[in-house]
């Protein structure tokens, strides 16, 4: 079992991500429809599909793939997801730029920087019923796991569990930010769309990394 992988083999993570978002397009839009405006899945999918096209003619390592994804989300997609995930993937790319090898320490930094950039642009807090409720605990769980001496695979698995728990925690939250915030108690009972997509993203990343490391 490996404890690191090459940046050059990491683009697979993005290809798998693209597929996952594609497969969950309707699911994410339907969740968004319940208390939002129903466009989350189609927007995400539009961005990730354009990225797939671009990578076809301009493939590269993980850093490169993350950069392309970030650029497409920011330049072509817009919505809330453009800036939020756009900045996220830009920061994630920054943290592995120039690194030939990605180990759990590097990956931990990628996640942490990604999270920071989302907080910076969106100023959400945990408990606001946003994607941060998935991302923040997941990032923390990963880095704690690494710190506690667990191996890379164990750490992504811990991240995964925390992500799912975080996503599910939004179900009983009252939305404090964004479209659903005035709903008050009516926002209870539905998972947040961004929390769901963020969970899919982290799960997919964990999955691919495990496959690469095995």
């Amino acid at each position, binding site marked *: 079992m490996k404890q690191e992988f090459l940046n050059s083999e990491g683009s697979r993570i993005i290809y798998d991500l693209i597929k996952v978002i594609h497969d969950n397009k309707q699911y994410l839009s*339907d969740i968004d429809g319940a208390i939002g405006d129903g466009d989350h899945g189609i927007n995400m999918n539009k961005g990730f599909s354009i990225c797939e096209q671009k990578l076809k003619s301009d493939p590269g390592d993980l850093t490169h793939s993350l950069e392309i994804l970030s650029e497409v989300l920011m330049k072509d997609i817009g919505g809330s997801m453009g*800036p939020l995930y756009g900045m996220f993937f830009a920061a994630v790319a920054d943290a592995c730029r120039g690194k030939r090898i990605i180990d759990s320490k590097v990956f931990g930094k990628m996640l942490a920087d990604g999270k920071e950039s989302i907080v910076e642009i*969106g100023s959400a807090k945990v408990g606001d019923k946003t994607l941060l409720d998935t991302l923040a605990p997941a990032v923390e769980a990963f880095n704690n796991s690494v710190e506690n001496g667990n191996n890379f695979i164990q750490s992504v698995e811990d991240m995964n569990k925390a992500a799912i728990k975080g996503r599910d925690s939004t179900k009983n939250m009252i939305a404090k930010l964004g479209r659903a915030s005035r709903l008050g108690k009516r926002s209870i009972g539905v998972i947040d769309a961004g929390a769901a997509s963020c969970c899919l993203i982290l799960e997919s990343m964990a999955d691919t990394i495990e496959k690469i490391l095995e």
Partner: protein
Amino acid sequence: MQKVINDPQNVVDEMLEGYIKAMPDMIARTNNKRVVKYKYAPIADKVGIVTGGGSGHKPAFIGYIGRNMVDAVAVGEIFSSPPAQMFYDAFKVADSGKGVACLYGNYAGDNMNVKMAVKMAKADGIEVKTVVANDDVPSSPRNSMDKRRGVAGEVLMWKVAGAKAAMGAGLDEVIAAAQKAINNTRSMGIGLSPCTIPEVGHPNFKIKEGTMEVGIGHHGEPGLEVTKLETANEIAKRMTGIILPDIPFKNGDEVAVLLSGLGSTTLMELYILYSEVYNILIEKGISVYIPYVGNYFTSLNMAGVTLTIMKLDEELKECIDYESDSMGLRQFARRKK
């Protein structure tokens, strides 16, 4: 999904195509295919008026491009803010050197994207100032007004700012007029049926027959509560009851009223509703200086209405009375009596 479309993934581009073909004397493309401008923009020595937002609200946003109205629009996907790059490109085609007023609605995506675009423009030496419409009363309580959504009040904001800019005002004056317009404006919506995003293919949410969604958002966001479907008169009472205390409007006020259908509500219904809104205003000593009744800001094919009321002063009246020519709002200068 009973819609006259081709590829559900491509509705925005195809719609733009048709719009530009239909309005060759009014609208022009730019280098960014998602940015369209008034044919004569930038207009020398005039502040540029820019807006933008997600699609699906026809005539908003592109329908308000025109003479003495909006100069350039950034066109997003259905219900999705355009990316920063598009806002930035819109600023560039609208700027005559006198600066740009970016007047948009208060949504997470638009806020983030406009903020980034303004930074990009600044680096280029283009001065951009913004006003964020937050006229939708039910979307947040009075003590957190900054969280309120922008809805059909945006149309009146564009009208006022477009006129002000056409009169030759500087950027700060245009921004001040637009901000005053929004400060003086309150709106609320009622939803009677859901809408369907073409690419999703089925309704976004449900509204049970015999009920209505009070305070619904322009994208079908749930509102304050679901009640039984009321009569037009009861709806008029409910809407004015929520809007009027919020400023507060008072005896002797003159107002502009904008009553917009949400997509599949007929003009017949709008006029029936307007009749009672008018009665209630008169009863409170508020006189309607100018009414706009029609489809000014829609939500795809949703059934329902939004009511917008703007308190006028002399400056706002002068702007509202100014001649304007756009697809969504075409108005002759008011004839003196």
